């Protein structure tokens, strides 16, 4: 690979890494701060991606809209709709043990996938949506637009990070962690545990929607396979666990570390003989699965552990 090629490869890895960092921050709000298990990350991510795509693309007969609106509007709409979907799931499960939320979130992700595949009027079905604009698409073209996007994505990471950090240290975040670590005592001092959980889940889902929107603008086209449910959901979980759940910087670091490993092994395995290339992706999945088990058993606090004392789980 020539140096420019390598540079732009790195840029695209960093863009995707930034999108994962946003997802990871979102999951950190739900799991790291709120102790809520979300196994349907891919679903909320997909809602965001399709929402922003439909809002921002030029009018098309193949799917709903497009409404040709600015990308900022698309991203905000993505957050709104993903948040609403999250609220629907959370309202059902917040009063039950986390396992039920896990099952229901898998369910909602599956239903959202069905809608995306089947409702062609809305999403153009399995053919998907194309011609999704890039930010500053008129000013920059080609590889320059990659650089512009890189800036936008990491600016978003920064904004989301600041929001999450504010949330974490705010009275709201402290209450939330108290609930996570000892629900009974939090309830005893009169905190409305259910409403706190609901808010946490909705905020997390909205941020996941933003990540979905950015990925739509990154790839410029969308199809149901772009949100391969298990891979997206699973990678984000591994990233957060490895980075250090409860720590926002850990979430970003974990996302980047795992994504770099994931991408680097891709470079390596792409040089394998063709009959091994498809197999190598299974090997990578297998290894990531094992990595998660290792982290869970030996390394639960992650690269950057949460700083305040953590009662549960340790």
């Amino acid at each position, binding site marked *: 690979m020539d140096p420019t090629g390598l540079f732009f490869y790195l840029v695209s890895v960093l863009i995707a890494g930034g999108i994962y960092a946003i997802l990871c921050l979102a999951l950190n709000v739900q799991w790291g701060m709120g102790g809520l298990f979300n196994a349907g990350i891919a679903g909320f991510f997909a809602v965001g991606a399709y929402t922003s795509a439909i809002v921002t693309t030029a009018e098309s007969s193949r799917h709903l809209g497009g409404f040709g609106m600015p990308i900022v509007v698309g991203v905000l709409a993505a957050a709104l709709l993903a948040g609403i979907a999250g609220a629907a799931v959370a309202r059902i499960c917040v009063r039950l043990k986390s*396992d039920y939320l896990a*099952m229901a979130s898998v369910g909602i992700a599956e239903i959202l996938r*069905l809608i995306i595949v089947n409702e062609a009027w809305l999403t153009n079905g399995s053919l998907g949506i194309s011609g999704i604009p890039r930010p500053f698409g008129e000013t920059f073209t080609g590889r320059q637009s990659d650089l512009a996007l890189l800036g936008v994505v990491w600016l978003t990471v920064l904004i989301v990070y600041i929001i999450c950090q504010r949330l974490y240290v705010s009275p709201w975040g402290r209450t939330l962690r108290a609930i996570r670590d000892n629900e009974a005592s939090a309830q005893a001092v009169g905190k409305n545990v259910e409403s706190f959980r609901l808010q946490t889940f909705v905020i997390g889902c909205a941020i996941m929607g933003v990540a979905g929107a950015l990925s739509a603008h990154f790839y410029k086209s969308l199809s149901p396979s772009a949100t391969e449910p*298990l891979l997206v959901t699973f990678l984000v979980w591994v990233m957060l666990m490895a980075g250090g759940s409860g720590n926002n910087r850990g979430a970003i670091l974990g996302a980047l570390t795992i994504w770099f490993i994931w991408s680097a092994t891709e470079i390596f395995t792409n040089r394998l003989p063709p009959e091994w290339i498809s197999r190598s992706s299974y090997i990578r999945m297998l290894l990531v699965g094992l990595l*998660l088990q290792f982290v*869970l058993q030996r390394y639960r606090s992650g690269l950057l552990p949460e700083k305040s004392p953590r009662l549960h789980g340790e």
Partner: protein
Amino acid sequence: MNELVTFINLYLIPGLVIGSIYALGAVGISMIFGILRFAHFAHGDLMTIGGYGVLAAIALIPVNPLFLLPFGIALSIVCALAVDRFFYRPLRDLPTIYTVISSFGVALIFRAAVQLVWSSGNQVFQSGVRKPLVLFDTFRISALHAQAIVLTVVIAIALHLFLTRSKTGRSMRAVSDDPELAAIAGLDTEKVIRWTWIIGAALAATAGVFAGADTSMHPNLGWNLLLPMFAAAILGGIGKPMGAIAGGLIIGVAEETMTYPWFGAEPLISPSYKSAVAFSIMVVLLIFRPQGLFKGRLL
């Protein structure tokens, strides 16, 4: 009359078949939920593994897949015991949600392993057209469907006897009722857990073979069945294996009969939204009756 026959042949019987598959899978989920207290996300993939185990055996011994069921069951049991030993047991003293996360990873490990060994394409147990059995000149049921329904009934009866009469079965129910008291009574909890995996994996493998034989084997087979199986386990009441069997049958029949044109000529629910039926049932249960139909535990 004709409509009734069509309804039975094309909706009710397939519903009972898919319901049997859900039922066999949901038994394990319900028992694991009751005894180990976590939602086992890799249970669908345990089904997949059982199916592929039989598929591998067929390549060597080309007979009816049902005769080779022990191979699939053995493979599933070995995998279940191994992941419990190496991945779940080390987490047993932590909040169970960590085990849920771990099982989520195990699901991926199982699937990746299946894809690695058998590649990701569809494979069939037996090719060719199978002639259905015709009962009373009107009811048509394929041999496979009949076998699935009959075997599920037999398993349900055997399981009931096991749980109510045998020492191990009663110990399992005791641990599910109250693990601390079971420890005080001196029961061997680890042995109970081992049996939970053995039974759960054996039934999952059986369900996996039926599911694969009904359509075809592919690596996502089990994962795709996970949602209705969770719904069946909740419907039947967590920790109530017999309830899970009833729950599986109800969900299977509900899914199929919802696609019947009850009003007018169009299916009530488009077949592509079948899995939404299970999800809707799950949502209604979680809102109104999370302990399920048969007063199971609420975790």
